[in-house]
């Protein structure tokens, strides 16, 4: 084969190929009628899911923030009251360690909460039109000649278990195993756990470890505060007196602490068995149907399961929020056909630690957690 028969293709020099129109300068009509070149737009601006982006695409949340402001408010107010009213007394009568421990827990809770809320949970970008067409063709090719619609499930064998992969009509692809489409965010999320209104985001593959750290540290913080407040009341007025005087408040605190502790316990069980809340609720591996089904993703060892869920390498964000759209590509509603990325944006994408980028543009919100 003679190589000169084909034009040696420089991969970097290629424009967007196939059905897109030839490249032309995209001009916007200005206020006074003059045509001005449009500034290149970032991909987050045309993201099809129901998400909100801040800080030029660095931070993302679900569009419905749920009760996230309430969560933040409750933590700040409770901790604030604790530091203002209980700490001075306890430092004087007990030890200086109390505000130190409380402070450390409080900071940890806040950081992990913000990370859970603002991190991409593992959203799968929607299929490009060519991919969708290719899959449609493959489905139709399965010899379906009747009037029934073609099958929209695919079966794969994982660790001797038959797993059905469903076709997502919104994202136009067969969902990978353990992926689910969140109707609130309108995105397919990998290893979908649940959509948490308290953090205002989905919990999935990429932010599950933050979520777990958050609820564990929150249960420690609430238990710690509850213990300190009870000690304070006991030392000041005597425990019996305190119970008689403010039983309702103490009861509310007691049950709140236990509900968060219960949630942490439940998620510890999920982590140890490498399950998601979604699978547990649906009973995917509990053998309800009578078949001998076991969780094919479990490593059959609690320690390895915990490590693989919490300490595995951090997967990258697949949606490339801060990449630029090609100049000639019109913004499409359904996952833009993004062929070759602008080489300038390569350094931005998927870099969890972009500290120089942070300092340059994110001055308004001095956040100290990674955005990815």
């Amino acid at each position: 084969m003679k190589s000169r028969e084909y034009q040696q293709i420089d991969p970097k020099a290629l424009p967007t190929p196939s059905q897109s129109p030839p490249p032309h300068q995209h001009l916007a009509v200005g206020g006074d009628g003059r045509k001005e070149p449009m500034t290149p737009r970032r991909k987050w601006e045309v993201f099809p899911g129901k998400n909100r982006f801040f800080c030029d695409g660095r931070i993302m949340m679900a569009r419905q923030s749920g009760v996230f402001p309430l969560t933040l408010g409750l933590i700040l107010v409770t901790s604030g009251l604790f530091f203002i009213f209980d700490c001075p007394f306890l430092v004087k009568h007990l030890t200086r360690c109390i505000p130190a421990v409380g402070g450390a827990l409080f900071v940890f809770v806040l950081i992990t909460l913000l990370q859970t809320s603002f991190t991409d949970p593992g959203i799968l970008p929607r299929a490009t039109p060519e991919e969708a067409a290719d899959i449609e063709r493959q489905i139709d090719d399965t010899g379906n000649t009747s009037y029934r619609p073609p099958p929209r499930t695919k079966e794969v064998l994982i660790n001797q278990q038959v797993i059905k992969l469903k076709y997502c009509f919104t994202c136009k692809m067969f969902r990978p195993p353990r992926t689910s489409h969140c109707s609130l965010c309108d995105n397919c999320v990998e290893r979908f756990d649940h959509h948490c209104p308290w953090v205002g985001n989905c919990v999935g593959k990429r932010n599950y470890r933050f979520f777990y750290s958050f609820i564990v540290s929150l249960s420690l913080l609430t238990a710690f505060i509850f213990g300190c407040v009870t000690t304070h009341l006991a030392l000041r007025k005597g425990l019996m007196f305190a119970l008689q005087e403010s039983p309702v408040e103490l009861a509310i605190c007691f049950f709140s602490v236990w509900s968060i502790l219960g949630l942490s316990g439940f998620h510890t069980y999920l982590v140890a068995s490498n399950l998601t809340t979604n699978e547990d609720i649906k009973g995917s591996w509990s053998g309800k149907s009578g078949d001998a089904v076991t969780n094919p993703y479990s490593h059959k060892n609690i320690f390895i399961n915990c490590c693989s869920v919490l300490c595995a390498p951090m997967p990258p964000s697949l949606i490339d929020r801060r990449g630029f759209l090609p100049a000639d590509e019109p913004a499409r509603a359904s996952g833009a056909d993004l062929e070759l990325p602008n080489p300038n944006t390569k350094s931005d994408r998927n870099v969890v630690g972009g500290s120089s980028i942070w300092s340059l543009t994110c001055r308004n919100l001095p956040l100290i957690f990674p955005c990815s």
Partner: protein
Amino acid sequence: MRLQDLQQPAVSSKVFIQRDYSSGTICKFQTKFPSELESRMDKQQFEETMQTLNNLYAEAEKLGGKSYLEGCLACLTAYTVFLCMETHYEKVLKKIARYIKDQNEKIYAPRGLLLTDPLERGLRVVEITIFEDRSIGSGR
């Protein structure tokens, strides 16, 4: 090599290599040689490319002592260590990008093909673009 505007290669078709889920949720692509490429390249070369890619992704997601240490350190610092450190996965992704670029330059571009980094497609598919055969004379 300079690409002249008038002679921009036209895209003939695209082939999508789907994910192989037989080993679970790890990133792995099917190594079956697509029929559309039969006229363009060797089956063995294609399989070698795919196998190397699969090995690289396995390396990225590998659970081992080093990744556990990284995870524990990250947890202890409330994951703020990610601000100053490139994760293991990212390092391997860069390696993969270099490998794909290298393969394109050496093997695929001379045959009128282009491998797209699966990361550009959300790790769903390996997209191979087939460009039009401009040869006037005989083929291979």
